[in-house]
């Protein structure tokens, strides 16, 4: 009787174990299942190969997949719904991507019982928002949509790679691993570890597909936490041409259709002249990972409406600090620290609060 009872209760315990293992170790099993066998590459060789692959064809190969962004910056909870821009600073967001060629692209942002879509096909683009039932037709200027990649045409890939690496080498230790997988594909991981001890960034990892050299994931690790503070990357990917239907859009019946020229979507370009004098002069202190941006900041007129709310709620949780330069309030997240001084300066950097307070003293 006793053992029978034990055996019976063993069944749910086994169920818990199996489900727990499946949930926790799913990615691990995928990683262990077949060790990726990528030939070893030095950092400069990898960058050279990537640059060569970028130049060889017109952009990355056709693909479709799911991109997930996860941010756990340790920021205080910001007001505003899940649709507000502030919500992008925390939590996970998902987008589906279909990429045919440099001028054929579809990006879908699924929401609960809603979906936003951007469909680019040649010189025409559509924005579809199911929650407002509107389709916006956007005229793309000819030639737009070309990938805005650096064109180091006067350099061989090898030189470009070396130059990039030399730049990175000044401030970071660079290493390459070839044993990881992203979205089931073997990748090279380029790991940049900052040399500056004052920065909050422990390391930045860039995963590049082992076959196509398409960047598949970027992760930023903060000091003192094992999970990445910020991550953007593919969780599913297939390097196959997506179905053609993805790039065609016909506005459904009974839907508001708006038309926009791409010019009108960029108000900053037209109004740029008038604002030029008001552009805050941004100064920087320090270099590399310890760079601190110093900009004038008038709290009263800086933000209105929702921005104001966000600012107030952030400042409410800020720590008051003071030094020989005066006093101010400091907001710390895992990756970024910001100091708003009472004399109207805003200092932002991926550095420790001490470094920021120190920098506030240097005018």
């Amino acid at each position, binding site marked *: 009787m006793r053992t029978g009872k034990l055996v019976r209760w063993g069944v749910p315990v086994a*169920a*818990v174990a199996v489900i727990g293992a499946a*949930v926790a170790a799913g990615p691990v099993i995928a990683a262990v299942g077949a060790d990726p066998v990528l030939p070893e590459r030095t950092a400069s060789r990898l960058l050279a190969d990537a640059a060569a692959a970028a130049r060889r064809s017109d952009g990355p190969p056709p693909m479709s997949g799911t991109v997930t962004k996860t941010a756990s910056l340790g920021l205080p909870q910001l007001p505003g719904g899940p649709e507000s821009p502030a919500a992008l600073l925390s939590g996970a967001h998902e987008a589906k991507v279909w990429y045919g060629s440099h001028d054929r692209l579809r990006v879908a942002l*699924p929401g609960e019982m809603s*979906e936003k879509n951007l469909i680019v096909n040649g010189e025409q683009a559509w924005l579809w928002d199911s929650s407002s039932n509107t389709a916006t037709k956007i005229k793309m200027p000819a030639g737009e949509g070309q990938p805005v990649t650096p064109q180091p045409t006067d350099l061989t890939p090898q030189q470009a790679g070396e130059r990039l690496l030399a730049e990175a080498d000044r401030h970071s230790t660079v290493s390459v691993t070839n044993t990881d997988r992203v979205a089931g594909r073997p990748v090279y991981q380029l790991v940049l570890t900052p040399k500056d001890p004052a920065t909050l960034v422990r390391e930045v990892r860039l995963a590049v597909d082992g076959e196509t050299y398409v960047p598949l994931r970027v992760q930023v690790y903060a000091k003192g936490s094992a999970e990445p503070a910020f991550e953007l990357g593919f969780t*599913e990917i297939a390097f196959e041409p997506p179905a053609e239907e993805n790039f065609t859009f016909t506005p*459904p*019946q009974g839907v508001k259709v708006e038309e926009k020229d791409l010019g009108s979507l960029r108000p900053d370009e037209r109004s740029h002249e008038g604002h030029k004098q008001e552009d805050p002069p941004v100064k920087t202190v320090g270099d590399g990972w310890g760079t601190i941006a110093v900009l004038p900041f008038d709290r009263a007129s800086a933000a209105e409406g929702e921005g104001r709310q966000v600012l107030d709620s952030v400042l409410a949780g800020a720590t008051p600090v003071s030094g020989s330069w005066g006093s101010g309030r400091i907001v710390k997240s895992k990756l970024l620290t910001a100091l708003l001084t009472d004399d109207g300066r805003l200092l932002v950097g991926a550095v420790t609060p001490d470094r920021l307070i120190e920098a506030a003293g240097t005018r």
Partner: protein
Amino acid sequence: MSTADISAAGTSTAGVSTPAAEASAAGASAAGTEVLGQAAASARTAGRSGGVAAFARLLGSELGLTFRRPRNLVMLALLALVPVLIGVVVRTFGSDGDAGGIVAATAGNGLMLTFVSLYVLVPLLMPVAVAVVGGDAIAGEANAGTLRYLLTAPAGRTRLLAVKYLNAVVFSLALTVTVAATALITGLALFPVGDVTLLSGTTVTMAEGLLRTLLIVGYVTAGMAALAAVAMALSTLTEIPIGAVAGTVVLIVVTQVLRAIPQLDWLAPYLLPTRWTGFDAVLRDPVATSDLGQGLLAFCAYTVLFGSLAWARFTSKDITS
């Protein structure tokens, strides 16, 4: 439960003359199990086809009880009323203002009412109805003092549990179909009908829209069946049916609250209610099969986990009432 408890409970109901009651009145729970074991053995010797027929008969009588019970019928009727209400409101007051896109789309296509209705009912009201039936399954019998009699029949506890669970699953299906069907009829009656616009902005034919509705009904039923397993597990823990029902409802409410806390975002994918509204994956183009698959896997995991808990508890507990 100790043997002393058993004998005390057994004596208090010793007036009832059944083999199981006599056995427990004798003060030995082991003897009771023996009787059940013999019953199960005799059922096994009756042959496979006989077993299946007995199972079907038991399920049939169980379904008959469930669908004749006024309480369950009232729940079905009330939930069926919701789509009608939504339809009439949208029809009367229009869908202008801040109405969500999918509600606005209802005015343009009757089929959308099905999706809206399920979206409204799936987070709380339908689960409550399923919790009532699932939570009542074992505890209800125990409370009415009929569980002993059921177990004296040559059915076996595992089989009885399976019948009770299947009964709750069929109720879940009936509930989902009722809601979807009333929504469909109301939608067809009140709104224009034609091609269906999906969330992705693609238009599909009416026939494909109906096909997708069927997929949604299947998905939602699976979600409710997973909840039925949870309710059933709670039902084996108590002899007071309202306790099991209330426990399940509290669990639903607590998980819905947990989902609303942004700091616990990482937890949300593992909670059952997160997956219930996942049927919107069917309304995308192409159908988000991976999301759908993950939802179904989650339902499966919940069903297996709580089903096995219910089984372990029910087959090893001493039945005293």
